[in-house]
């Protein structure tokens, strides 16, 4: 919707809408600032970047460019040196993540073991049960399994 612009020259195209006036004012404001404002429509941001491209070609700022280049070189060299150190941020992050996973696994494992019913005492039936064919069915194997389970529960915090 067009607004009234008695001072608008028709040779400059159709009279601007209220929205266009607002966008134009935002752009003018952004061009006056050394740092682009954080809140901007994508369209205005894109037009602002076109203005930046014009300035970069027509009015290059050598001092700012030199400073940016030096920072980038320092950053790049520092970034490549760090991985050699055992305390590099990337390695520390990995170590922290690994420790968190191990801790979670430990807690989870304990909870899992706790949730299981405790192993009961050795029953006479173990000795009296008839021998069945197949590996592990011998009374000695069944006694071994019972002992192993008790040991495991004790070691992992079972209720035995």
């Amino acid at each position, binding site marked *: 919707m067009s607004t009234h*612009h008695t*001072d*608008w*020259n028709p*040779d*400059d*195209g159709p009279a*601007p809408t209220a929205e*266009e*006036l607002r*966008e*134009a*004012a935002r*752009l*003018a404001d952004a*061009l*006056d600032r050394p740092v*682009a404002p954080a809140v901007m429509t*994508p369209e205005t*941001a*894109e*037009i*602002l*970047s*076109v*203005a*930046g*491209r*014009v*300035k*970069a*070609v*027509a*009015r*290059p700022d*050598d001092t*700012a*460019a*030199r400073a*940016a*280049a*030096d*920072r*980038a*070189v320092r*950053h*790049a*060299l520092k*970034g*490549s*040196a760090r991985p050699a150190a055992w305390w590099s941020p990337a390695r520390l992050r990995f170590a922290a993540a690994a420790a968190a996973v191990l801790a979670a696994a430990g807690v989870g494992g304990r909870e899992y073991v706790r949730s299981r019913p405790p192993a009961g005492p050795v029953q006479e039936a173990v000795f009296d049960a008839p021998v069945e064919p197949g590996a592990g069915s011998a009374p000695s194997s069944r006694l071994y399994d019972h002992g192993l389970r008790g040991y495991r529960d004790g070691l992992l915090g079972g209720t035995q």
Partner: protein
Amino acid sequence: MALPSGPWWAFDALPEAGERAYGSRRPREMSATDDAAAEERGLVEAAQRGDRQALQRILDRVAKPLYAAVIMPRVGNAPDAEDILRDTLMRGMERIETFRWTGAGVFPWFRQIAINLVIDAARRRQRRGRMEERLERHIQDTEVVHHAGAEDSLIEAQERAAAAQTLQAAMATLNERYRLAITLRLVEERPREECAAAMNVTLGNFDVILHRSLAALRKAYGAR
């Protein structure tokens, strides 16, 4: 106010639009000496063997031309341009072993990395249309002649000339008032009030004209 005649801004040795930036008009001093080329090759080979000092000298040499003449004219935003430069240098360092020496030296190799990252960044933002991607491809395809061992200031001048040529050609497609608005405000960096007075419009109307001019330039950039 009439448009300034000739080039819209002072730019030494700016090639005329339509002419190759690095053709026969290239000044003789742009060519590097054999000694300088040999020195650059030595630096590259040392860097490939893991010599960090050599690597640093290469980065020091290419960083500013990359930022000022390759990345900024395509990005137009200093923080984004610096991020892309950092990524370019990091990627170049990681892959320096894969670089194969040609007579053009190491700068075109870094330049290609930078342009690829500029295009990647534009795609990520999804702000640019297909026309602008076409522009980037056009710039990427632009034949540039670099010489191993050339001074970084000369490399930068070559790159800036190419960027200026593209901008000038895009500006030539705009109508006169739009071109004047951009020239006054961005090229000559005059205050808004002065620009508005020079164009015989109110301040608010000048803002609108500039906004429309830059929107038109954005399209013109893409169409080239």
